[in-house]
Every structure is written in C-alpha cells, then in structure tokens.
C-alpha cells in the first residue's frame, strides 16, 4: 500500500526550530488531523510536504520516492499530486469560479493558451463536474470575490480536485468560516477521503472537529510529536497540554 513516510524531519528558521525531528508514516486513504496550538509547526509541516519550503534536514518519501530531492518538472509533478487548500482560500478573487477551478490544471498540464484563460472542453467538463458535486455549478461564472467564505473554500476544494491528487493537504481549512460552513466544508473533505480514497492531512485548530472527522490525530507541540493515535485515545490531560492556555 502506498504511503507517505516522514523521517527525522527538521526545519529551522533563522532563530527558531519550527519542526524538530519528526517521523510519521501515513497510509493511503487515511484521514489524519494535525492538532496543536498556533505556532506548533502545523503549517510548516504542510508546506514541507508540498515542498513550498525546503527542509533543513530529514526525508519525506511517497511510495518510496524521495520528495525532498525532487527538482524541476518532477517537483511540479509532486506538487500537483499533493493538492493543498488554505485557511484564506488563496483564490483569484477577480476571476470567475470556473477559471479558478481550471487553474488547478496549470501544474499537471501547462499550455501557453491557458495564460489566455483558454482551457479545453474536457477540462471544463471536469471542472463543472467537481463544482456540481459541491453544489456550486450555478455559481460557475460568478466572480469568486462575490462568494461567501464557505463557498470560496469549496471552490478551492474543487480546484484541488482538478489536480487528480493522491494527497489532499488542508491547512486550517475552516479557521475563517462560521460553524455552519465549517461543517459543510469538513463534510466535503471527508467525502473526498471516503469516496475517492484520497489521503487527507488536515491542520485543525478545533479539537472537537478533529475528533469528529479524523481517523487519526497527530498532536504537535513546539515542533515535536506529542501524540499519535486514534482520537479516542487522546486523554483530557494531554489535550489540555497540547493546547496550553489556548484551550478552546
């Protein structure tokens, strides 16, 4: 079975150590929640996996292929294989929903015509299908900036799906959403995990949501793993320690 293996990963920024010797193994089809207070290194870990930033030392491998040494085209392929969604959605506000979703194909299939916003019919149909699955097909030609936060995050999910990813990295996907929209978005992510069997790694601020949706939780504190296991085995004391004073 395919898996993501992280071995003694370290990331130092000039003064601080954001990730301090982390080793994890995540299997295909798992839905993993990464929990911890802000500044614990959750976001850094996501960015390391996607290679948006370079590790100081250690290794990340997927299916036995070392990720940290990829370059050029292979690196772009890897990035498109592990799709990412963000706390602030990071969409192109001034463009319509469909173009935003289609922009997910820029990594796997770059064409000069795409710089003129011209995409193939096949890709448009695919994009519209994902939007339809997320109940957004009626908004396809609306500007993203006019949508609500929850809708925007679902556009971002559709964009991620356009990449045909093997892994979905979700960096605080619901932090800027209200409870109702949070639920919709988390349900959608869960559906992707269950139906398509895509590995999901999800940074979550809220412990309740993490417990509700994830099969496995990894607790980070000061860049170190302090918990790794099924949500039910997370004790109250440990949880309090994880969140420190920021307990919600």
């Amino acid at each position: 079975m395919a898996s993501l293996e992280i071995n003694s990963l370290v990331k130092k920024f000039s003064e601080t150590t954001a990730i301090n010797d982390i080793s994890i193994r995540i299997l295909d089809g798992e839905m993993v929640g990464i929990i911890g207070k802000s500044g614990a290194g959750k976001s850094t870990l996501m960015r390391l996996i996607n290679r948006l930033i370079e590790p100081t030392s250690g290794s990340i491998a997927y299916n036995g292929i070392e990720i940290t040494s990829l370059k050029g085209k292979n690196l772009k392929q890897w990035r498109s294989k592990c799709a990412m969604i963000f706390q602030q959605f990071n969409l192109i506000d001034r463009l319509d929903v469909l173009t935003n979703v289609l922009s997910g194909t820029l990594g796997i299939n770059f064409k000069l015509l795409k710089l003129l916003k011209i995409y193939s019919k096949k890709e448009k149909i695919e994009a519209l299908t994902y939007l339809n699955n997320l109940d957004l097909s009626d908004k396809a030609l609306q500007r993203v900036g006019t949508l609500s936060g929850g809708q925007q995050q679902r556009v971002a999910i559709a964009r991620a799906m356009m990449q045909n990813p093997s892994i979905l990295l979700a960096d605080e996907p619901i932090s800027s959403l209200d409870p109702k929209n949070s639920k919709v978005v988390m349900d959608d992510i869960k559906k992707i995990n269950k139906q398509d069997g895509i590995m999901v790694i999800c940074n979550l601020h809220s412990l309740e949501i993490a417990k509700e949706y994830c099969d496995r939780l990894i607790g980070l504190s000061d860049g170190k793993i302090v918990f790794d296991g099924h949500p039910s085995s997370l004790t109250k004391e440990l949880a309090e320690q994880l969140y420190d004073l920021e307990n919600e």
Partner: protein
Amino acid sequence: MSEKDIISLCPKAFYPLWKRSPIVFTGYILVIFYFLFCLYYFDFSLGKILSGLSNMKPILVAMFTWNDFFNWNFNSIFTGLAQTLGMAFLGTFLATLVCIPISFVASRQIFKFGLIRFLIKRFLDFIRGVDILIWAIIYVRAFGLGPFAGLLSIFTVDVGTLGKLFSEATDNADARQIEGMQSTGASKISVIRYGLIPQIFPIFISQSLYFFESNTRSAVILGVVGAGGIGLQLTERMKAQYWDQTLFIIILILIMVAIIDTASRIIRKNIIDE
C-alpha cells in the same frame, strides 16, 4: 451524469470567447488591431529597427572610448550643470513666491468672487497645457539663447502646476480655524496669517521641494532648444558627434538627479515629521 447534462448546467462556459463576453472581447480585438495598425502606419519593421541599431553600433563604440579625457572642456560641462541647478532652484523659488498669493485668491474659503477664481483657474490650466519645451522655445525667441529663457520656462510651468496644487491645498484647509479667526473680527490679512498659513505652509514647502526635484530633470532637457544648462552642452556635443563626452555628461546628469532626489526625499520627510 452524462457530458450533456454537465454542459447543460452552465452552457455559457462552453461558448466561444466572443460569445461569452462580447464587449471585453471586442475591446481586446480593437486594441490589438489598433496596435497593428499603428505598426503599419509608421512602417515599423524589424528590419528597419535592426539596420538602425547597426547604425548605433559605431556610436556606442565611440561612447565608450575615452581617449583624450584630460583635454575635455570640463569648465563648460560643470558650468552647465551649475546652470541647470540654478535654473531649477530659481524657477521653483520664484514660482513658489508668486503662487502663494495666487492660491489665496483662487481659494474658495478666502475670496468669494467666483468669476475671478474661475478665470485664474482656467489661466493656470492654459499654462499647464503648454509643454515646458514650447515655453522654452518661445522664451528663447524673446530673450535670446541662454539659461535665462530656461529659468523663465521653469517658472512659467511651475506657476501653472504649483498654483493649482496650492489652491487645492488652501481649499482643503480646515474651515473651522479660518472661521474662528473671522469670528474674532480680524482683518483679511490676519485671517490668512493665523487661520490659514500655519495649516498649509508645510504642504507648500514639501510640494515646492518635490517640484525642485522634478525641475532639475526638466531643466536638463531645456538646453535642447537652446535654453542653457547642461542640456545645451549635451546637445552641442551630440551634434559634433563627441559621443564619449555625450556619455560622460549623461552619467553626470544621472548622478546629479540621483543626489537631488535623495536629498529632497530626506528633507521632505523631515519637514513632514516636524
């Protein structure tokens, strides 16, 4: 779901470009068309440019061969630089002096005569509508070649621009302070002195400095039509094909402008802080 069903969800997305947003599309086509038309209109061919560039080659080579550097007439070059700075300084300074009273008269808050204000503003618009080089060429005709014509052209254009900016500043001044003075029964002069000037003076100074900075740039080119300064030295050397000295002067100009920019930025920052 079949392909057809999906398409029917949003058929517009599958329209060709010109049908999806015809106005934007036409806009782009027009711009591209006009661009191509202009290229055609000016007979703008790559061959022409390339042959022109090959003509540039000996000029460029000559620019970088400084053989008789020690025989150059540095005296005239540095006099030219000094003249340029002098033109810019005096032009801005005199224009500032003239524009302060103009701005009071053109300001809504002090004088209530609409007609005078209107006439002054249109006159300022007219002055600004004429490019500085055109003023320069007219003044050269009237006063002869030399930096004096340059000074006058800078002065003229500055009156147009500073006059407008100053009167906008007085218009935007806080009315309460002026009314406060008026309510004490003070004369018009004291209203201006104590109600208005403290508010607008820093703005005037910083704008004048800014214009001094941009006027050093304008003063450089006035010499092209004979209005003195470093531009005159530069064009004379270009006409005589002294390309080495041409490059030297261009470098000097760049250095001078950079120094003035930095100095004026520092001073303006200090004035605003105070």
